[in-house]
């Protein structure tokens, strides 16, 4: 129990208005938007790589004489990979910008929570992901006659939401790895998403994966979102209640990833890595 002297010495902390929560979230979005406007690599992320992916995969479907259904199967995967990649990078940038500029300690010196970092940067990621989707939809539709609303606007909205939530989880995972292992882990920002989509049946059905890998795929929300959205194009479902299971799994991973990043930051404060990343 605190002594009377200790109690008297404690100066009460003033209550904060609720708007402070929103402002902290906005600050991360603000920084990501400025960086996106000023750095050329953002333009490449937003236009060049998604454009190249859509064109090359579309041309591949032509070369293999795939019908409209199979073309849709492939191109849905192409869109998913690009949208998830761009959106998760924005979440990872919440930490990567500070790693690259060696300003990590200033961010963690402020009274922020993981929710502010994650949601603020994720919202910019969602906006950029929507731009990527629209660009790819335009290229796919114009060049290969692919109708992205063919599965219905509702499933499309759910599919994109699922992709962006998957990005949030992968982005938080990347942040955790970077906070735990420093610059050695920054390549995970590009590697993690490719590994995840490979296991979630990006250009092929889950059923062709080896049995144990199918078991692993069942733990990845994107597997369910791809499966559910492709049903709108006439493919037989692999999972039952795919939307429901996908979002339930996503909610679980969001909480887990939040906890994981909090634990990684605490460990980094203990080992001193948080300071080393600012030197």
């Amino acid at each position: 129990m605190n002594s009377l002297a200790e109690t008297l010495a404690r100066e009460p902390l003033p209550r904060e208005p609720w708007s402070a929560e929103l402002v902290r979230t906005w600050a991360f979005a603000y920084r990501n938007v400025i960086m996106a406007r000023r750095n050329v690599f953002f333009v490449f992320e937003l236009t060049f790589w998604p454009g190249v992916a859509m064109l090359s995969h579309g041309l591949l479907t032509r070369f293999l004489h795939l019908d409209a259904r199979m073309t849709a199967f492939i191109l849905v995967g192409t869109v998913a990979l690009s949208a998830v990649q761009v959106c998760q990078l924005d979440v990872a940038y919440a930490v990567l910008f500070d790693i690259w500029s060696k300003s990590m300690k200033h961010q963690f010196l402020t009274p922020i929570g993981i929710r502010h970092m994650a949601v603020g940067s994720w919202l910019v990621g969602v906006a950029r992901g929507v731009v990527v989707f629209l660009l790819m939809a335009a290229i796919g539709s114009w060049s290969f006659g692919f109708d992205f609303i063919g599965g219905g606007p509702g499933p499309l909205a759910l599919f994109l939401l699922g992709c962006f939530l998957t990005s949030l989880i992968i982005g938080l995972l990347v942040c955790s790895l970077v906070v735990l292992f420093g610059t050695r882990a920054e390549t995970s920002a590009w590697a993690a998403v490719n590994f995840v989509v490979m296991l979630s049946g990006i250009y092929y059905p889950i059923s062709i994966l080896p049995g144990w890998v199918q078991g692993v795929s069942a733990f990845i929300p994107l597997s369910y979102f791809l499966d559910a959205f492709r049903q709108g194009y006439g493919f037989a479902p692999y999972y039952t209640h795919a939307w429901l299971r996908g979002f339930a799994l996503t909610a679980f991973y969001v909480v887990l990833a939040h906890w994981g990043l909090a634990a990684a930051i605490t460990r980094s404060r203990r080992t001193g890595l948080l300071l080393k990343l600012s030197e």
Partner: protein
Amino acid sequence: MLAVDARDLHKAFTSGWWGRRRTEALRGASLQVPRGAIYGLLGPNGAGKTTLLSILATLLLPDRGSATILGHDVVREATAIRRRLNMASGNASFVWSLRPAEVLTFYGGLYGLHGSVLRQRVESLIEQCELGPHRKTEYNALSTGLKQRLALAKALINEPEVLFLDEPTLGLDPDVSIRLRAQIAALRRERGTTIILTTHYMREADELCDRIAFIKSGQILAEGTPDELKRQIRIGDVVVLRLEPAVPAEFADQPGVLQVHVRGDQVECAVDSSEKRLPELLRWLHEQGVLVRDCQVHEPELEEVFVEFAR
């Protein structure tokens, strides 16, 4: 009322395979800083200054011991107490593409500031830190001095009650250092901010700090006002006299005289207290029929204190 109360802080870092190499950065450091004080932490490289500052600033977790800022625990209440403290370091760095006002707006946002309050504070800091002409310059293109000023502006964005400055004038031109020191002094004078600073510049510590702690090998070896510390190491004041005729042989035996060096007609002697001993010595020399042609008194510099403790 204490702004900072740290007791028996221990911190070790491990490195190498399986953390087999262990470096003790702090070994029972304790520190009490009253509100509104400017407190200096001095010590050689690797003494533990930055480690101590980082624990107090909630960036590092101690292995043992406790620390409070304004009565709040830096481990258990870290997020809440961060609203009332801030830090600037000499080697500060910010995201490369942001302009000064954007850096301040971003960090201001992280402290929950918004709208006209944030805008006014950013503008006032830009003006106060003379960053106005560099408003359109991205961080990477700023000079070292401007980066340092921006770091100080960032550290003031939340009007902290406790401010940590880690070598704030490192690598700055003398004129910029002088202006920065004036700003630091004004902060305490005008806002009553408690400032804890580390520095390698003894003059800076002597000029700014009310109290100073010498830290070495993770332990605080001495603490006090600059004058107390100078007295503590007993190097005494130096009195230089030019005498005619030569120095009497009994001069070294006078009370309070610690050392005597004679060079021609000049005698340089260390005395325990010039204030007390100088009148006695002058009287004695007069009695001996020695004429004092010149007399100078040098108090020991903080630098000498530093060398003594760092030894």
